């Protein structure tokens, strides 16, 4: 329901106001060419990418919170989103991004896969979640430093601006090509992340108990890490670094379920898709001179969610 509403809103609102009737007509392939161009070529890709990226980030956050048994986990704790961002920043910095529209996303995905290799090298054969978090922070910090370096050394203010813009995250002006880049990555990521629900449930009793319930945690970890690297890599590749969706969506949906990690997977996916698309509509409706960046809006949305959580916790104590 929410997703459908968000999708319609995403099609309906924009810099140029188009009446709902003209939007519907344009979708059917009729109506005037201006409406058709705006809706089909601009708003539909933007909506599809919003839904895909939101679903991926929401699911990745839910899976990582369950796997690491840490309610503050999100895709960036393993360094995947930062590394993807570094790949993209490198593309802008070295001027490769101008060569072709797919160069930047491809480098972003390569960046996130590279972070995965680094993560495995650092974490070694250990199965403990703390080792994973420490290794993830190391990767995350390193790639963050790389991004800062690129900003620091950027040859001219325009390149720096472009990098900054991209780091703030946005899904405006996305084309069908972007969908084709993100879609396969996100489908693979979602498929890999959805199968381990039971293992995540068992992990709420700790590593030993989970293994004694019949789960091979090394396989679980492998699927989760590859799923996050490919899926989040694909998402960041087309949207830039959009934070907080993966962090807050599981917290919003958890109280509505029985709180087992597997129960929040699908709701987080749907919630992520809806929240990101709504945030994107909000971006377009804000009466600012420049269009606000999506990452800025999601970060502001994150604050009240955590305030509510804090208050609820304190009343419990």
């Amino acid at each position, binding site marked *: 329901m929410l997703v459908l509403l968000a999708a319609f809103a995403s099609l309906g609102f924009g810099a140029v106001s188009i009446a709902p009737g003209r939007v519907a007509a344009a979708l059917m392939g009729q109506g005037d060419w201006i409406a058709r161009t705006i809706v089909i070529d601009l708003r539909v890709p933007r909506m599809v990418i919003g839904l895909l990226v939101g679903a991926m980030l929401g699911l990745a956050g839910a899976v990582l919170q369950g796997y690491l*048994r840490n309610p503050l986990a999100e895709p960036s704790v393993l360094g995947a989103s930062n590394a993807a961002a570094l790949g993209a920043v490198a593309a802008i910095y070295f001027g490769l991004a101008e060569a072709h529209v797919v160069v930047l996303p491809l480098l972003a995905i390569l960046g996130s896969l590279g972070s995965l290799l680094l993560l495995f090298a650092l974490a070694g054969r250990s199965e403990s979640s703390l080792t994973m978090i420490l290794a993830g922070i190391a990767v995350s910090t390193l790639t963050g430093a790389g991004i800062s370096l690129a900003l620091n050394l950027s040859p001219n203010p325009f390149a720096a601006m472009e990098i900054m813009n991209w780091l703030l995250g946005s899904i405006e002006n996305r084309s069908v090509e972007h969908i084709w880049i993100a879609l396969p990555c996100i489908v693979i990521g979602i498929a890999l992340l*959805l*199968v381990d*629900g*039971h293992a995540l*449930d*068992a*992990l*709420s*009793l*700790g590593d*030993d*108990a989970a*293994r*004694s*319930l*019949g*789960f*091979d945690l090394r396989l679980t970890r492998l699927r989760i890490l590859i799923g996050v690297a490919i899926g989040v890599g694909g998402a960041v590749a087309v949207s830039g670094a959009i934070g907080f969706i993966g962090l807050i969506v599981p917290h919003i949906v958890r109280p509505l379920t*029985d*709180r*087992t*990690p597997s129960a929040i997977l699908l709701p987080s996916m749907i919630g992520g898709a809806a929240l990101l698309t709504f945030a994107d509509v909000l971006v377009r409706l804000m009466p600012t001179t420049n269009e606000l960046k999506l990452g800025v809006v999601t970060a502001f949305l994150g604050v009240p969610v955590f305030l509510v959580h804090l208050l609820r916790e304190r009343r419990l104590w």
Partner: protein
Amino acid sequence: MVMVSIENLSVALGQRTVVQNVTAELRPGALIGVVGPNGAGKSTLVRAMLGLVPRSGGRVLLDGRDVAGLSPRDIARSIAYLPQGQILHWPLAVERLVALGRLPHLAPMSGMSAADRDVVADALARVDAGHLAGRIATELSGGERARVMLARALAVGAPGLVVDEPLASLDPGHQIDVMELLAREARGGAMVVAVLHDLTMAARYCDRVLLLDKGAIVADGTPAQVLDADRLSATYGISAMIDLNGAAPLVVPLRRI
């Protein structure tokens, strides 16, 4: 029915050998207690038995098949395990927590059947915790939580049960309840191994006691054969009042030697 044969098992954690050359046949039908001082290797022994820690020598056979070659799921369906100081990371309802015991029987991404739900309710009833079903497990008292965690292990419905310090944080009444439950399980044909610290409880309810010290089995037999004054002073470094022949066996530590 399930039977575990431990043959010359050794386990090293880091550089240290924690379990040395342990050999034992663990058969169903008798409650088996594993006792010994802190650091004797009791928990490591049972974890190695379940294939949860890599071994450095020897082998463990589960019904004649090497545990190292079995899938985790096969082991899980044969032996349920309650780790020491079981933790819970999310505030789940008690019923949901106990239901985690059914995971070894569920296909990936599927839910529980009505039969699974019956097993869960039955496990809760057996630890006298049926009334807690709707409570949040992280808000229970220590004793209630310990019983609910035991119910989680019982819900696996495996022919074998390994519990590591199931009596910790239980009051005397519930300690007796749990020991009677374990003895009943064993005499009903299950293979039950309990790591215990309370020697009186071990003497009173166990049919067989393994005494471990520095990773090796020092004695293996009935409580009366194993728990004598000399062994307790050599392993625990204590003197104790021991009366194993009365109707209610007693091992009461008196002082350090």
